[in-house]
Every structure is written in C-alpha cells, then in structure tokens.
C-alpha cells in the first residue's frame, strides 16, 4: 500500500526525498477506511483509529512539519473512539466541532483525491504548445518605470519574500506544543471519566476494562509518538519552544 504512494511521488527538484510515507493524514485515514470498504462516518473512524495510530508510530521518518498534522488527526480520532467506548464522555463544543470538521475535511479530501487521479491521467499527455518563437526583432525600448530606484526596490521586495519563505518551516513546527498539551488533557479526562464510571460497571466489567486499558495504553503511545517526532535528530536545528500560544502566521 505504501509502495503505491512512493511510485507516484516523483518530486521536482532535489529538495524532497520521501520514501514510504503518506502525503498526509487524510490520505492515510481514507486508505484505512477504503480497505474496510466503509465510508466516512463516526463509526468507521472509530474503527480505523488503532490502525491509524499504529501506522503513524511506524513512520520512522516523519517530515517534521507534517508530524503535527498527523498527530492532530490522531487526537481527534481518539476523541471519536473515546466517545464510542465511553458513551458518557461528553465532548465540549470545541471538541464536537473538531470531530465535525474532521469529517467534512475527509469528505472534501476524498473528492480532491478523485480529482487528482483524474488529472494524473491526462497531465502532460496532450500538451497544447504555444506559437513557435520567431526570430525576435529587437528594438531598444526602455520604459518610464525603468529606473535604478525601481529596480533596486523590486529586487529588495523579491528578496524579502524569499527570506520569509525560507523561514516558514520553523514557524510551523510550533503547533506541535499545542497538540502535545491537547493529548495530555485528553488522557487526563478519559482517565478521570473511567474512575468515575467504574461503579457503574456490571457483569461484563472485565471485558470492558480490558478494552479501556488497552485504549489508555494507546493514548500513551500517541503521546510518545508526538514526543518522538519533536525530537527527531534530523531536524535537530529546529527549536521547539513551550512559549508559543498563537497560531503561526503565514502572511
């Protein structure tokens, strides 16, 4: 399955070389759902949560800037699964809308994936070319805006944009912290809910406890996954700080 992804992934330029990785979290979720021949809904999502997390953890080489997105989706999937395991667990409005948004984004991504497949069949097959170049009749024709001042300010602006672009990856990584904190809160809440609900357990308690214990273990693993990604040595030069709160500004 991963190989099919790699095959298609011919990058322009030499900057990116990704092997055996999913382009993004949505693609992974959809493939897991497709494998079960299900469609996108809360039931199917709760069913693929374990597999998703396993895949994410098995991903040794995470592109740093995408790690946060993968973990973020994991957190929402866990919420959905928590809810299916512990019906008493009440989601906050924010969490509800997070779940809702994930569903909508997955459905939209599903369509984009179809579009992409359609385009991949025709891209570059029947290129319509422009009129052939005639030997140009060169006429020296400077313009009013051709001044040294305009030239230097144009270059100045272009270089400022270039520098801004180069700096972006560092800014993106900061979202990691928020997600890590979110995971902490989730573990805490589920654990609390569990102790409270223990009294209500009846005859089938043993089986349920097992489910929940493994689920908690799962949460722990995800948390570790997040930490791993953040400390990946390939990206040792990227600083991750605890201080950032706001979302990065992409300009």
């Amino acid at each position: 399955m991963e190989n099919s992804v790699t095959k298609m992934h011919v990058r322009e330029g030499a900057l990116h070389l990704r092997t055996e990785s999913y382009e993004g979290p949505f693609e992974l979720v959809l493939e897991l759902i497709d494998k079960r021949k299900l469609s996108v809904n809360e039931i199917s999502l709760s069913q693929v949560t374990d597999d998703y997390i396993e895949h994410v953890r098995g991903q040794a080489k995470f592109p740093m800037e995408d790690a946060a997105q993968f973990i973020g989706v994991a957190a929402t999937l866990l919420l959905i699964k928590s809810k299916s395991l512990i019906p008493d667990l009440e989601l906050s409005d924010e969490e509800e809308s997070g779940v809702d948004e994930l569903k909508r984004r997955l459905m939209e991504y599903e369509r984009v994936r179809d579009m992409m497949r359609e385009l991949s069949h025709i891209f570059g097959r029947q290129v319509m070319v422009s009129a052939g170049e005639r030997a140009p009749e060169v006429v020296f024709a400077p313009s009013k805006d051709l001044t040294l001042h305009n030239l230097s300010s144009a270059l100045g602006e272009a270089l400022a944009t270039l520098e801004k672009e180069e700096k972006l990856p560092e800014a993106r990584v900061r979202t990691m912290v928020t997600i890590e904190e979110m995971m902490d809160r989730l573990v805490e809440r589920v654990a609390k809910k569990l102790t409270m609900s223990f009294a209500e357990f009846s005859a089938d308690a043993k089986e349920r406890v097992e489910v929940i214990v493994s689920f908690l273990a799962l949460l722990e693993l995800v948390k570790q996954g997040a930490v791993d990604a953040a400390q990946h040595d390939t990206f040792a030069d990227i600083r991750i700080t605890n201080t950032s709160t706001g979302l990065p500004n992409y300009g």
Partner: protein
Amino acid sequence: MLYSVKTMALTTPALLEATLFASGEALSKARILKLLDISEKELEGAIGVLHKALDGHGLALIETDSELELRTAPDATDVIKKLRENELSRDLGKASLETLAIILYRGSATRGEIDWVRGVNSGAAIRSLTLRGLIERTEDATDKRRARYNPTVDALAHLGVRTREDLPRYAEFIGTMTEQEEKSVAEETV
C-alpha cells in the same frame, strides 16, 4: 488611436485570433479589450465564436478567468512532439497534483483553503507549481495581504483542455464543493 479596428473587413473573432497569434503568449482579457477597442460583452461573444470556429482545426483557444492564448490542439501532440521535443513535461508529484486540482476545480484558492482540504502544509507544492508557471499568485479580493492562487493558461494546456469546464467530471466535482467551501475556516491552517 486614429485607426478604428471596426471598419476593417475581418470580424472581431478573427481579429482576436490574429492578435493572439501575433502575441505568441497569453494576453490578459483587459489588454485585449483595449487593443481591439471592444466591450467585455463583445469579447465574450468573440471568444465563443472563435472556440467554435477552431473546431476541427489544429489550433485551440485556451481561456482562464483572466487570460487567453492560442495553442495547438490537444490531438496534434504526436506531430508536435517531433518538432518541440524539449517541451516534454515532467510528471508532477502527488502533492503538486492535489494542489493543482484544488485550484483548478475551484477556479482559485488561498493557501489556507488548500491546507484545510489537504490536511498538510502545501507550501512546497505551491512553490513548485508557481515555479513551473502552472499557477500564479494574485491578491485576494477581500483581504489584500492574503495570496490567492489561480491556474494559468499553461496549466490548462498541460492537461489538454481549453477551459476549466472541460476538466474531467467537472460538473460532478463542482456540485458539492461550494457547500464545503463555505463551511471551511479558510484562514486557519490545521
């Protein structure tokens, strides 16, 4: 201008064709309006007529929201390849293709909208598509600081289609999209 275009024997669609041919590159509709001294409505009509007049010809008119260009017809590829072998295009990566699909089917998209749908950062894909001239950056109408990306004539030309509407399953894909788009929180990146 002293000479009026309209008094000449050629029809507006034919003049449009001649102008595009002579320019050899994509011309903005705004510039064509001035050159031919016609109204937007007249241009629209001329585009429709020229599209039809080129049916069965070796040339085709490519139209984006803002530009027009005359190109070879998609079915001429085999012969053209012998003449212009250097224009063989390299394949696009999956990330770029997804990003291009979003921009093409929607007509245009902001960085936030693309990231929202793809669930990953699309910066590298956008840069690569921009470098290859398949999309171009414009100012967002509502928020000038925000970049909006539009497909270029070259994007359509690489797909062998004359307009966005000719894209595969266009009507089907467009159908439910507007609904999702409205709901999407565009600015926030994941």
